[in-house]
Structure formats: C-alpha cells, structure tokens
C-alpha cells in the first residue's frame, strides 16, 4: 500500500506504467502533458493526522528542489506549513519533525487549509510516462491539460474506485484542455486509471 501522494507512489506508478502492455497499447497515440492540482479538503486534513500519510506527503514534496519549494511561500499551502505546521515548506526534509507535524495536523480544520494546493506534472507520451513529479505553483502552467479537484476526488480516481469520466462529468474533477482530443483517446485515459493508477493500491 502506497500513500497518495508520496515518492513511493510516484515510483510505483512509473513502474506500473512501464510494465503494463495494456496501457502502452491503449496510449500509443497519446501526446500530452498534464498539470494536476490537488486541493486540500477535509479528508486531506484527516489523513495528514496519520503519521504515515504525513511522512509520505513530505517525501513527495521532497522530490522538488529547494528552489521550487520556496515558491510556495505566501501561497495557502506555504502558509499551512509555516503557520499551522510550524515549519516553512522549503525546509530540508530531514529537518522536519514528522511526529510533531502529525500532531499539529490533527488540530487542523478544513477551513485552515482552504485553497492549499499540491501540484504534480506528468508527461504522457506514446504509451510511456516520461515524467511524473511534484512542481511548484506557476510551473508547467502551459501543460496541454490541467486536471484539478479535491484530494478526496483524486483518491477516488487514483485508487480506481471511481472512473475518471464519472469524476470529471460530475464536476468532482475539472479537466481543462482540448476536450475533443481527450474524447478521441478515451482508451488511454481509461487504461491510465484502470491499468496504471489502480495497479498501485493506496492506503
């Protein structure tokens, strides 16, 4: 079981994509990168108060260079770290006190993290995932597609418990970009969820 989002999860997803012949076949014509935006919500707050989730989340953010993490300063997510969890987000990961942060997270409310977003960028290209990594606010804004939504909706998608199309059509996730392209390549989208994401069980 991997924590979403975490370094472990990203690595497992990349491996799953590499191994899945079904995904490679379904996405063989796909060209287009995604900027994914995960908005903090009540479930995120609840999950962060579990030590393993906090640790996984920090490992995810630690995939960004320090310079990128500095760009969160002044953003809602930067404020959550600095003002609610007691450490700036650009603090080196080994300096974070996971236990202390978990304890502080347990006192957070959904209101406290309103507007706090995590970003990751994925480059899907002809059946392979050339990159998947967390990014800073403002980076990869020119991505071909943007997919945004609350953490709880993201969990439903990456766990495979709900299909992407239902989440997007019911407004739980918002997809921006050339919709006709996505519609013509629905096999790739479905395979990404079913064969890649769902192949990495999350906790």
């Amino acid at each position: 079981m991997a924590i979403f989002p975490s370094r472990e999860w990203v690595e497992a997803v990349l491996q799953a994509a590499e191994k899945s012949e079904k995904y490679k076949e379904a996405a063989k014509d796909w060209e287009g990168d995604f900027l994914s935006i995960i908005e903090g919500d009540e479930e995120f707050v609840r999950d962060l108060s579990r030590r393993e989730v906090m640790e996984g989340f920090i490992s995810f953010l630690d995939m960004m260079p320090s310079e990128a993490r500095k760009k969160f300063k002044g953003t809602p997510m930067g404020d959550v770290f600095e003002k609610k969890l007691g450490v700036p987000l650009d603090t080196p990961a080994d300096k974070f006190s996971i236990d202390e942060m978990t304890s502080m997270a347990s006192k957070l409310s959904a209101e406290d993290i309103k507007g706090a977003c995590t970003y990751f960028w994925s480059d899907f290209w002809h059946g392979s995932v050339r990159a998947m990594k967390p990014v800073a606010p403002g980076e990869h804004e020119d991505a071909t597609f943007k997919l945004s939504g609350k953490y709880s909706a993201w969990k439903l998608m990456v766990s495979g418990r709900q299909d992407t199309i239902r989440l997007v059509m019911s407004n739980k996730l918002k997809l921006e970009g050339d919709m006709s392209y996505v519609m013509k390549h629905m096999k790739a989208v479905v395979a990404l969820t079913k064969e890649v994401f769902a192949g990495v069980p999350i906790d």
Partner: protein
Amino acid sequence: MYFEIDPKIREDKGLSLLREETHRFAEEVIRPAARKLDRMSDPEQVIAKDSPYWDVLKQMKKLGYHRIFIDPDYGGLGVNATEAHIILEELGWGSVGLTTAIGVDQIAPAVASLFAMGDVIEKIVKPWVEDTEAKYHGCWGVTEPECGSDYIMACEESFLPHVKELHPGEVRADKDGDGWVINGPKSSWISSAPTATHVGLHVTLPPHDNLANGAFCIVPLEQEGVTKGKPVDKLGLRDDPQGDITFDNVHIPDDYMLIRPPFYEFRIGQIICATSCFMGTIFTGLARAAFEEALRYSRERIQGGKPLCEHQLIKQKLYKMFEKVESSRCYTRKIMEHVWERIYIERTFDASSRHALSAQIYGKRSAFEVAYEALQIFGGYGLTKDFLIEKLFRDARAGLIEDGTTEVLGLAAAYNIIEEC
C-alpha cells in the same frame, strides 16, 4: 419456429431459457395488452389509471426490464449485450410501443448511473431501480416544436461544425442560485410523456446560441411549472402514449444536470448509440412478429385450391422477409455488442455512431418492409382489425418517424462516415 443461428447462444441453456421466459411474457402479457391499448378510441384511455398500460409497466418493472441499461454497480440488471438483445427482441415481438415505454423509462437513471455521483444517485437512481410498482416512470425529452429529428443531428459529433444551421433550441436552462431553472416546450412526440414522473431532458445553456451548447438533465415532472399536453391520437404505436411537455420556470438542483459542457457536445451521441441499438433490436422483434404472422396465415389460407405458401410468388415474399428478419437480428446484435463493450465494459464511451445509427435504421426499415409484405400476403383481410398484422404494419410505419426519421438518422450517420471512414 425460432432457430438461433449462433451455436454459442443456441447451446447456452441459460440464454435459451431467457428467450423462452421473455417470449412467454411477451406473448401472454404484452401482446394482449398492446392490442387492447391499440384499440382504445381515445388516447386518454391508454394513460388512465385503470389502463392495462400500468399493469404491463408494473410487471416489466417486477421482472427488472427497467434496469437493463443501468450500470450494474448502481442496481442495473447486469445483463450482457447478448442477453439484452434477446430480451429486447422478444419484448419488441410483443409490442414495440410498450417496449418503448420501458426503454425511455430508463434513459435518465441510466445516464445518472453511468456519470453521476452524490444526491442524484440516492434520490433518483436507487429508488428507481428498486421500484416494482411503477411509481417512477421516465420519458426522454429531445425533440421540440421548431426542431424535430434535427435535434438528433446535433447529437452527432461529426455534424458539430454545421450545428448553427439548425434552430438553436427552445427548451433552455439557466443558472439560478445553486440550481437551474428551465423554460420552453418539448414537442408532442415525447414517448411516455403523458404517463411519466420524470424526464431525461435535453436543454440548451446560455447564450442559447446552438443545440450543441447544451446539457442533459433529469427533471421531476410532478412539480409546479410543468404542463403536459393531451396524448396524441395517431396512426401507429398507439400503445406508446406520446405528448408534449412545457416548462415554465421549473427548478432542478445542480446535480440533476447530468451531462454538461464540454461533455455534452462530445458524449451526448453515446446516448443515441444506446437508444439506436435498442430501437433496431425491438423493431427486429416486430419484423419477426410480422413474418411469423404471414407465414402462419400463408399455411392456413387456401387460394386457388392450395395454401398461399404453395404459390411461387408467396414463397418468394416469405424468403425475402425471412432474410430481412435474420439479417436484422445479426446486425443489430453485433452493433449492440459493440456499443455495450464501449459503454458498459471498456467505459470509453466511444461507440461508433454510424454503426449504431445504421442498426436503428436497418431494424426499423426491415420491420416496415417485412410488415408491408406480410400485410400484402394477408390481402384484404390484412386491412381488417381481425388480424394482428394491421397493427404491426401501422407500428412499423410509425417507427420510420419515431426516435428520429430514418432520413435524418441516415444523414447523421453520413456525416460520421465521411469524417471517420
């Protein structure tokens, strides 16, 4: 008389039993009720509380036929394409009109079960699938007074560059607080409108400039602002009550808006794919019914000292009818399998519209051609009310118009053929 050409289906005892059981229901319940409804002089009698229409609808719901197209994860019947095809052909054999009622019944909850989350699942889909008393009954609001079968054209993605050539639509939804407010008239040809409690409704959205800038929503009809017209008195499909619905400041919550931009213009055609398979299949059932009536009559009726079927001309007609029924079954079944795979199994929602539309056209045209020849074999008796064939002929003729005229359906398919082939 029925012979299944596909050995996998023929040798499957479960499928054989399914066909037999469905056929028995069609023969013992649907067909007699359909004939009674057809002969009612006033269409108001068809929709009256004591009408056989309701008895049949309740029995169909008890048997789960209102759940064929609903996502199995949300209470759907869980049949595969072959099973759905078998059930629908048999029900269509009994009555295309009453089968249309159970078909349009499930369009809105089926769409909700496939695409929606949240309240609409709890408030609409769950009670709908559990209903065995016909407390819930759906209809499908597409065509409008100023925009008939054209509305189907707007659902074809390949036609989108030309959509502004059509009327921009009369039923409009506008944002109103957290929900939507709906205004405008749907045409007189909404199947089950006079009896329905809910409608799966096509609307346009601001700036209301074209039909593709639209949405599909579910609207409870038992509320202020909804006006229903009288059921239409018509030539055929008299057991399928049709009428208009007008909306005057009718409110729905936001999550009742099931398909909205940008998905409406790219995915609404998938509803048409599903309904087209449905129509092609039930009209295959009608074609078979007409063929069987003609074959039986041709064996019994003596002319020129021998049964009709002993005459070369009649033999030729019977052969042609047989060929149409069998080819219609094979074709509609194959297309049903394709649509089912793309919508219910792969969930890619990219079924081929040209194939689905052609299944509908082929099934309906076959039904009309077979019914036409069947009535011809009956001679003058075919024109009397003494035989079922005149009803089948009238129903088949109505089918060339219902759910989109075959001309417009063909035109929509042609746009897709030219773009995709």
